């Protein structure tokens, strides 16, 4: 027989062992050792076993005694969730890691625009929902101790005091949680000490339950088939499960599995590697199966062995004790103790993170006027807040235990707690699968679900007449018949659990959906919604902070106070390296601020981190670009339309070019038509006279030889004119097409002018006096002399032809001006009328009528030739008479000769 004191001693040794294991694990993690174990999928799976609390360790057997197979639903739901990891958990874990989520409240608040209101609501709901559960653990430990005390038969020095025992257990748990749960501030970092202790306890409770089960099946009942026979003949030997409860409880357990703060802590926050989830997807259902395998045999054997009236919740303990197996009983006690303590530790850890991040820190920040920018280390405040929260929560659990008087079946309290936290489910699922979920929707859904849960499940659990009066139960709230806590809207006859789960979850979901559909999210909500829902699509998260003139110093000061000097320095250095600004503070780019916010969020939660940065950034800054990033679709549409715009711009440009080209073509075509009509006119005139005179010659028989000669000479001259015209046309086309080759040679200007004057005079009957300055003409040129003389001949011939003075005179003067030689041809006639001056260089332009000598191509050809030679030919309207000026550049050689001639001219 084990005495109570011996049991306590074993218990203390076990606890000391746990402390050592946790301590060694922390040290190893700090030194970077033992990663193979600390970060292994095995430890991850075992840490999930905090799902199996003392309620399931002890209570499952009691549950089986009362309701047969129903106990197993509590394990089936989570098994399905784990097996279906791909649907929900994979997404949750990824979001948790990406957003550095610290708790279930942080997840929901972060999703709905980092709303602190929502975080506070979820935190309060979690505290209200989980406190009874913590009380339950304390109760189970003290009850199990009392069973030992009873079997001990009063050999202990003093009678067993359950209140004191509960207090001591609570105090011990608080010390452990404070020691190992608040070692590092970053709630997102793994608590290696806690996790490893939980893993050890997971093994202990499994081994204990299996040991008791094996003892019962093979030691007491005498084998598998005998056990099965015993089961069939026992009071619970037949299937009598209510279908509604069966399905409702599977769903409830599945919902609670992901919503319970402690499960979220181990599943998501403490997750180290997403692949561990895949291993746990089969390993954890296996664990659950083993935990529930021997529940029914133990229950049945317990019913056989134990006296009627014995508490079936403790058959796991009392059956071995009654068989004199004190060692086994001690092991079983340790198993129950492990279940209780590990649950309390992790639940308290999760809740304290929520309370300190979402309630204490915001209040503290609001009370301190300077807010985030004030000096002083915030880390101590955060850690202190977390420690105080731990004490507060465990104290709350203890008081609840004292107030509830340690009564009631374990399973009932457990289910109530499940129902409470399951209210998070619609907001959570909606948040990670539906972009349309809004903060108002989540708040309304939570409020509705939670009120219904409190009214139909929590308050009735205290019993009729305690919180809710008997009248309320029978007549409904305020005497309204449809507000009876166990028959809402007149739906009576349902099982209370099914009733409560159905109404709370369905109305919660309904309110959440309707309000979400009707409300409009703020920009930050939309931003976060996109990031949560598209967590697998976005390689880079969208940005939440616009670029503003923020001193990195301010951010640095704040970061130091929360992360600690060394860590903040490290973080800033990494970013400085990343921005290629070594040894400087990083620039406060949106990326950087976003990263810093995530880092801070891991310590103080998303809402608080956002608020702190907002204080420094000057308001929650979501820029227009961010809004575009939020609306993924609209961003895509925008991009598409901008592409379209670009294309249409290109098109319109091309169209404009085409239009221009078309205009040019039309102009050219008009010019061509004009040219053709002119040329045909020019060709027809001589052709007509040639035809006329040759017909006269042919048809007139008697004609004097003088007449014949006259007509023949007319035909001859017209033929010459035609030839000249064709030559000119050819010449012009050659010049215009640039096909002309210039034969550059050296010669003096004087020689060119001399030759031109001779030629021009030779071809004309009219007499003109030509005044020259031969001494100034001694300029050596390197150019195409023949072409130049062609220009000069044309100009001189024009003067001879068109000068209308009584005594025609042409003055040819030469001057050198700015590196060019200017030759001016000026006659003493009336000059060219103003209105035709600008056309004289055009093709077929002729001044006056009647003369009919030229085709009007001469000046065009002149201009083309001079242009080829690199010079210009101009008409000088202001001068006396018709005055043309030809300017020609002087090449190097020409320049030299020019200097010589200039000197000579000066002499």
């Amino acid at each position: 027989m084990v005495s109570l004191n011996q049991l306590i001693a074993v218990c203390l040794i076990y606890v000391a062992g746990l402390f050592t294991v946790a301590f060694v694990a922390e040290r190893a993690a700090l030194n970077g050792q033992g990663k193979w174990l600390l970060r292994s999928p095995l430890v991850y799976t075992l840490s999930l076993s905090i799902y199996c609390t003392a309620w399931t360790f002890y209570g499952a057997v009691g549950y089986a005694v009362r309701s047969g197979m129903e106990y197993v639903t509590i394990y089936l739901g989570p098994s399905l969730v784990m097996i279906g990891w791909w649907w929900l958990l994979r997404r949750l874990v990824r979001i948790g890691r990406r957003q550095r989520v610290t708790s279930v409240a942080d997840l929901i608040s972060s999703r709905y625009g980092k709303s602190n209101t929502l975080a506070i609501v979820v935190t309060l709901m979690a505290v209200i929902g989980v406190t009874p559960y913590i009380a339950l653990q304390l109760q189970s430990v003290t009850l199990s101790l009392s069973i030992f005390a009873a079997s001990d038969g009063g050999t202990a020095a003093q009678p067993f005091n359950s209140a004191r025992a509960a207090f001591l257990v609570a105090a011990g748990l608080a010390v452990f949680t404070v020691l190992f749960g608040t070692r590092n501030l970053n709630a997102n970092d793994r608590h290696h000490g806690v996790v490893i202790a939980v893993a050890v306890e997971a093994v202990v409770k499994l081994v204990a339950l299996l040991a008791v089960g094996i003892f019962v099946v093979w030691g007491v009942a005498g084998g598998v088939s005998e056990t099965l026979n015993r089961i069939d003949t026992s009071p619970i030997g037949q299937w009598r499960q209510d279908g509604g409860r069966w399905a409702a409880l599977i769903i409830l357990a599945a919902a609670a599995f992901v919503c319970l703060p402690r499960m979220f802590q181990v599943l998501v926050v403490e997750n180290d590697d997403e692949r561990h989830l895949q291993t746990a997807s089969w390993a954890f259902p296996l664990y659950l199966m083993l935990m529930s395998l021997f529940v029914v045999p133990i229950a049945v054997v317990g019913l056989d062995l134990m006296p009627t009236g014995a508490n079936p919740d403790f058959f796991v303990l009392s059956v071995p004790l009654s068989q004199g197996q004190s060692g086994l009983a001690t092991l079983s006690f340790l198993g129950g103790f492990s279940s209780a303590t590990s649950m309390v530790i992790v639940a308290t850890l999760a809740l304290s993170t929520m309370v300190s991040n979402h309630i204490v820190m915001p209040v503290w920040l609001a009370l301190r006027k300077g807010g985030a920018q004030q000096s002083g280390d915030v880390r101590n405040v955060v850690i202190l807040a977390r420690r105080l929260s731990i004490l507060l929560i465990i104290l709350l659990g203890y008081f609840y235990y004292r107030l509830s008087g340690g009564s009631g079946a374990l399973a009932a309290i457990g289910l109530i707690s499940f129902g409470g936290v399951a209210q998070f489910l619609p907001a959570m699922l909606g948040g990670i699968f539906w972009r349309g979920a809004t903060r108002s929707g989540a708040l309304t859904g939570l409020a509705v679900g939670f009120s219904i849960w409190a009214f139909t499940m929590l308050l009735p659990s205290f019993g009729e007449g305690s919180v809710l009066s008997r009248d309320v139960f029978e007549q409904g709230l305020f005497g309204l018949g449809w507000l009876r806590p166990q028959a809402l809207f007149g739906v009576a006859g349902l099982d209370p659990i099914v009733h409560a789960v159905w109404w709370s979850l369905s109305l919660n979901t309904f309110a959440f959906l309707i309000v979400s559909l009707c409300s409009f999210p703020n920009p930050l909500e939309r931003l976060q919604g996109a990031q949560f829902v598209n967590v697998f699509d976005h390689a880079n998260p969208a940005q939440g902070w616009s670029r503003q003139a923020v001193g990195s110093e301010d951010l640095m000061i704040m970061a130091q106070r929360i992360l600690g000097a060394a860590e903040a320095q490290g973080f800033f250095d990494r970013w400085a390296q990343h921005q290629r600004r070594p040894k400087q503070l990083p620039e406060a780019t949106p990326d950087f601020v976003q990263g810093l916010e995530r880092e801070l969020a891991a310590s103080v939660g998303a809402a608080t981190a956002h608020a702190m940065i907002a204080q420094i950034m000057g308001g929650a800054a979501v820029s227009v670009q961010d809004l575009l990033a939020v609306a993924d679709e609209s961003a895509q549409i925008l991009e598409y339309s901008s592409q379209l715009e670009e294309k249409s711009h290109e098109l319109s440009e091309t169209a404009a070019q085409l239009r221009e080209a078309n205009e040019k073509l039309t102009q050219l075509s008009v010019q061509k038509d004009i040219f053709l009509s002119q040329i045909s006119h020019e060709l027809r005139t001589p052709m007509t006279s040639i035809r006329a005179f040759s017909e006269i010659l042919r048809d007139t028989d008697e004609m004097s030889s003088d007449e014949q000669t006259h007509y023949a000479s007319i035909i001859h001259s017209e033929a010459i004119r035609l030839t000249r015209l064709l030559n000119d046309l050819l010449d012009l086309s050659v010049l215009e097409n640039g096909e002309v080759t210039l034969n550059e040679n050296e010669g003096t200007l004087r020689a060119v002018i001399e030759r031109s004057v001779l030629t021009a005079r030779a071809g004309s009957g009219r007499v003109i006096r030509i005044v020259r300055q031969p001494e100034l003409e001694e300029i050596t040129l390197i150019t195409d002399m023949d072409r130049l003389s062609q220009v000069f001949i044309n100009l001189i011939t024009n003067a001879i032809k068109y000068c209308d003075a009584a005594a025609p005179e042409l003055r040819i003067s030469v001057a050198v001006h700015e590196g060019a030689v200017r030759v001016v041809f000026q006659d003493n006639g009336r000059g060219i009328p103003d209105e035709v001056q600008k056309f004289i260089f055009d093709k077929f332009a002729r001044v006056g009528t009647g003369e009919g000598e030229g085709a009007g191509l001469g000046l065009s050809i002149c201009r083309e030739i001079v242009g080829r030679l690199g010079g210009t030919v101009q008409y000088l309207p202001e001068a006396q008479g018709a005055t043309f000026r030809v300017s020609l550049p002087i090449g190097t050689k020409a320049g030299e000769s020019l200097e010589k001639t200039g000197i000579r001219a000066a002499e």
Partner: protein
Amino acid sequence: MSRNPIFLERKSYRRRRIMDAVRLLPLFGLGLWLVPLMWPRQVDPGADGLAMSAVLIYIFAVWLMLICLCVVLWWRTRRAED
């Protein structure tokens, strides 16, 4: 979307079907575990409930089968990744 090929090579095809199986497994399990809703119950008039031993064996057999399938799929996805 349009960039993805319509047909996959054998290996990736197999991998996708394994992932389909992973997705379907929980629904399969839920279906099997809801079968007890149709069993005769002790409280139904004139009917003896199904023997508890049979219930026990059925539920745990389904459980074990799901775990085994899950292990097989896990093993195969890991091999497919390597």
